[in-house]
């Protein structure tokens, strides 16, 4: 089983920052990230994962009062963490839609060198329109085009990482030759989106390439993942959905001539555990109590792509109007609409459901119960592990590492020591040869 730690300011529960044990002021400083990373490394986690967004979270043109902050820059965080950890893999997120390949290739090669082979790149095409407005665009690039651009982008990065032979640095002091120019191969790429000439100013990264990660579940995202990804951060919260997703991706990989083991799928999982079922429920209820109605209505409006701010909280969710509004709904949204119809749920009730959901798998119960749950998913072929999303930091992470990890280890499901030092070793991924 592979375990990632997904970092989010304060925690994954929307109200985590209001929890009495959380210091929300500290969430941008080094101490917060160092603490979380070192706990994860103590728990022998495979990796530390940081998302990235290129626009503030707004509601009606104003930053969201109840939770308008996303992660600060992920490359800065992961590179800082590389200096205070030894083995933990480090995954940063950068968009192929608003960057240039050379910079990104250089950045991840540097992170891989600085961390001695622990870097991974979560490749995103950026999903929200708002980012476009911060980069001089009138609208966000259309999805098919975005993924075509992403494919070309990644191909260029790979060519740049490969531009130095593994033995290009000769460092022959007697002859005064630092690097053998014959072993450095500038690329000359002319493509639809980019033209890039030159070589990287760094030797080949220790892992060859950083681990390539993908996080979208759309058809275009799945195709892209089947083509290039080595790890997927997935969002399925039900076992059968996750198994179907994993089967689909693995099948698609075969179409591209890839072996299914070259890709690990880690769904997000946000657990709350207690020594008893009741204690876990109580912890969850205390946190849910802190959810403000406004934040739930905002999340609901975003997901439904429908303004619900002017509706009374106790009004029935206007499912007819929402369906008629022409938004492109995810399966999760459709199932919530169906349930609202069936049970006659109010705006407030739906908002609460969304706010509590944490948008990924959740588990509330005992330590053994959580281990059972994780084992069942793994044994059913629904995943290769999990991206753990602690409900709040750092306490729920500490609980996971001190109580859940030992149970997983006792059951022989999870490592007791790191076997190698690089992220590819942890994930059981091969080292790519130069193309």
């Amino acid at each position: 089983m592979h375990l990632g730690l997904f970092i989010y300011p304060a925690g994954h529960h929307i109200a985590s920052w209001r929890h009495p044990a959380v210091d929300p002021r500290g969430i941008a400083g080094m101490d917060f990230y160092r603490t979380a990373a070192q706990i994860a490394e103590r728990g022998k986690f495979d990796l530390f994962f940081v998302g990235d967004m290129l626009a503030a979270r707004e509601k009606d043109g104003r930053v969201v009062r109840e939770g308008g902050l996303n992660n600060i820059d992920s490359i800065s965080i992961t590179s800082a963490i590389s200096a205070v950890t030894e083995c933990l893999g480090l995954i940063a997120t950068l968009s192929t839609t608003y960057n240039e390949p050379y910079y990104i290739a250089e950045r991840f090669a540097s992170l891989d060198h600085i961390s001695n082979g622990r870097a991974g790149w979560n490749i995103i095409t950026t999903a929200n329109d708002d980012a476009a407005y911060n980069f001089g665009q009138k609208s966000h690039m259309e999805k098919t085009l975005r993924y075509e651009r992403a494919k070309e982008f990644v191909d260029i990065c790979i060519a740049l990482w490969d531009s130095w032979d593994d033995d290009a640095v000769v460092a022959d002091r007697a002859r005064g030759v630092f690097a053998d120019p014959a072993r450095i191969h500038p690329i000359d790429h002319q493509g639809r989106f980019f033209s890039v000439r030159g070589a990287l100013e760094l030797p080949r990264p220790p892992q060859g390439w950083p681990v390539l990660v993908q996080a979208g579940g759309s058809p275009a995202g799945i195709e892209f993942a089947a083509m290039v990804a080595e790890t997927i951060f997935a969002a399925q919260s039900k076992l059968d959905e996750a198994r179907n997703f994993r089967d689909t991706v693995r099948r698609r990989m075969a179409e591209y001539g890839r072996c299914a083991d070259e890709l690990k799928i880690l769904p997000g999982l946000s657990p709350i555990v207690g020594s008893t079922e009741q204690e876990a429920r109580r912890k969850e209820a205390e946190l849910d109590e802190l959810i403000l109605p406004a934040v739930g209505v905002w999340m609901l409006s975003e997901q439904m792509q429908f303004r619900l701010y002017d509706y009374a909280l106790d009004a029935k969710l206007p499912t007819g109007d929402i369906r008629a509004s022409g938004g492109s709904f995810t399966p999760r949204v459709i199932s919530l609409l169906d349930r609202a119809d069936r049970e006659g749920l109010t705006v407030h009730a739906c908002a609460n459901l969304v706010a509590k959901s944490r948008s990924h798998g959740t588990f509330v119960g005992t330590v053994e119960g959580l281990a059972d749950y994780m084992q069942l998913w793994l044994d059913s072929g629904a995943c290769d592990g999990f991206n753990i999303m602690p409900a709040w930091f750092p306490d729920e992470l500490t609980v996971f590492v001190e109580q859940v990890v030992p149970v997983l280890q006792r059951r022989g499901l999870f490592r007791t020591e790191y076997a190698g030092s690089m992220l590819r070793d942890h994930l059981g991924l091969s080292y790519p040869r130069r193309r």
Partner: protein
Amino acid sequence: MLHLTLSIAGSGYHPASWQVSGQASGLPPSPGAADLYPIVRAAERGCLDAILLGHGTDALRVGGVGRANTMQLDPLPLAGALIARTTRIGVAAGWTVDFTEPFHIARVLATLDHLSYGRSAWLVHMFGTDALAARIGRPPGTDGLSDYCERAGEFISAVEKLWDSWEDEAFAVDKASGMFVDPDRVHRIDHHGRYFTIRGPLNVPRPPQGYPVLIQSDPASADGRRLVVETADIILTRCASLAEAAGRYKDLHRLAAMQARDPSSFRVLADLGIVLAPTAAEARQRAERLDYLVAPGSAIPRFVGTPEALVELFTKWSEAGACDGFNLLPAVLPDDVALLVDAVIPLARAQGLFRAEYAGATLRDHFGLPRPASQYREISG
């Protein structure tokens, strides 16, 4: 009080540095950061103001491909790693305004400033090299120097707007009322310029320093110099003699006065390469040996001599009003940094030229620079 910063790159700024550095270990220079951590910790022990990453690396590109250690870690991730290994010293990362967007720079530098609790600086490169242009896929050169400077000026001003888009009090985190962010104190910047259109706001709270420190090299052109005097907190000059440096220092201050810029709001540091040894003869030998291996052919003024002579130079230049301090470019890592911290700094301290400990917490504190207020403060009152 003198200000001292240390630039680090490759195995040192002499293109032959890798041939003489770390000879004891017999290992080739590492492309990673492990060799740099002890150097940066030493600089912090010496209470230097800041480490500069990505400055003057052209000095290493002489002698043809493969001659020098030209391995260049991207200064941004390297800055993140160095921040994590230090607690007081400032860390400056070089990033050109070419080929990128203000939003990226504002976001990353604000992050570095938060992670470091206010110790970050942006080493603003106004000009990307033609080699970089090809790698990015843009035509080399510029449309014309004045357009170019205008674009750089707009770029910097957009970055500052983004840093200001969150007022200091915007990150409210009031658990009781449930106000995480105060929407009245976060502003879209709605920047519509000749070169950039940016809505904003940034998605990072205002940096602890207000703005990370802006460091810029003094350019040769009049347009460029006007821009630098208008925007830089630290100006790096590159002068071959004391007389030239003193003249430049006066020029820069005259320009600042013309632009109504408070002269206490910026500092001028002189770039100075250093080749140090306990005796003058040994220092000369070291320099000769390096130059014999590869002729340096770089425009960086260079001091070759003893720690005592270097402190003498510090005194002379500051007394003559040639600079507020120095940005030192060590010829060989870690050798020249070791002598700098163990011999030069104690001497400079003994003469009252340099601090014995850090007085403040942020890099602006070290430089004695004011913390800028948000330009959007007036709007919300």
